[in-house]
């Protein structure tokens, strides 16, 4: 049922928009072409930012620094009873979307999809976003300084999301 609804979402949105436009006698195709042109310009504008971000994140991920950070914070998370298996996912989630999917899949495979740990990993994936990437994409090509506030608030939200994922999974399973 739910997979059917999510399959329907995109076509339905397009259909509703087009029907409204036709009903109100708009020049749909001309409008579409105008918009599509803007799309190209925007993509070209954000491309350099993407290269820069992917480059530095790729280095960070492959250098092995992450493994070291995990080792350091391991004792702390053990004290607050945070599942150790989740830490790599929690750390990579804000930085790399594909990295997070890889790690989450790995965690679910090793611990079982329907196990407590597997569920926590799923909930984290569903309730948080690739924060750094999002910030980079939305500020790319704008000539603005990225402000500390956004980063702090967004990472704080991620931390709350991850902790809540653990708590809610514990309560509900």
């Amino acid at each position, binding site marked *: 049922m739910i997979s059917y609804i999510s399959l329907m979402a995109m076509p339905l949105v397009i259909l509703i*928009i087009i029907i409204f*436009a036709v009903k109100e006698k708009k020049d749909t195709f001309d409008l579409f072409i105008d918009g*599509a042109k803007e799309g190209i310009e*925007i993509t070209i504008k954000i491309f350099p930012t993407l290269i820069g971000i992917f480059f530095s994140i*790729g280095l960070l991920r492959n*250098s092995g620094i992450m493994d*070291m950070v995990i080792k350091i914070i391991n004792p702390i998370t053990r004290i607050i009873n945070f599942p150790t298996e989740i830490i790599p996912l929690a750390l990579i989630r804000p930085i790399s979307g594909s990295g997070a999917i890889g790690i989450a899949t790995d965690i679910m495979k090793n611990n079982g999809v329907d196990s407590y740990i597997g569920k926590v990993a799923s*909930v984290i994936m*569903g309730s948080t976003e690739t924060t750094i990437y999002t910030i980079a994409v939305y500020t790319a090509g704008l000539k603005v300084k990225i402000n500390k506030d956004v980063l702090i608030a967004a990472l704080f939200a991620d931390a709350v999301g991850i902790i809540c994922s653990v708590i809610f*999974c514990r309560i509900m399973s």
Partner: protein
Amino acid sequence: MLNKIWPLFIIFSIFYAVLFGNIQEINSAIFDSTENAITITISLVGTMCLWSGIMKIACSTSLINKLCRILNPILNFLFPDIKNSKKIKKEISMNIISNFLGLGNAATPIGIKAMQSMNNENNKIKNAEKNKYNKLSNSMKMFILINTASIQLIPTTIFSIRKSLGSKNPTQIIVPVWLATICAALSGIFCLKLLIKREK
């Protein structure tokens, strides 16, 4: 911000990799990262153009005004400085709705457009000099935050991953996902509002 973090990432990564013998991985990261950026951009060009086009149509209809009216109280609370700009509000509404429906491919292009409109507005007010970096306006900050919060009705990606791994009940996690998302989004919004207030 990125001017400070970006070089740090690179310096630390390379030093660490050299010290601990991961230099092979660093080499592959250098090539892979450009490849990844190209792959993403190429897949983005198509969806970006498609959804910018669809959005252009949507914005010309009365449908978007109706949606705006529903979202108006929330928008006015989150974005007090753009209360009077209808065009930006339209774009923000479409972005929020696309996110909510899980249409990430649609939400991003629309969101980027909204950011550019807000930036233009911001420049107009401040009479900014050309070629100079501007500050993010409060609305822009809030808008980015909302997009990092991933408010989603149906988290499709994780469902399909769970299904592919043979879960007995892939959709079982939906309620905890909703609760965790709401908690995360509210605390993010609260945190940002506080930070903005403190700045003043």
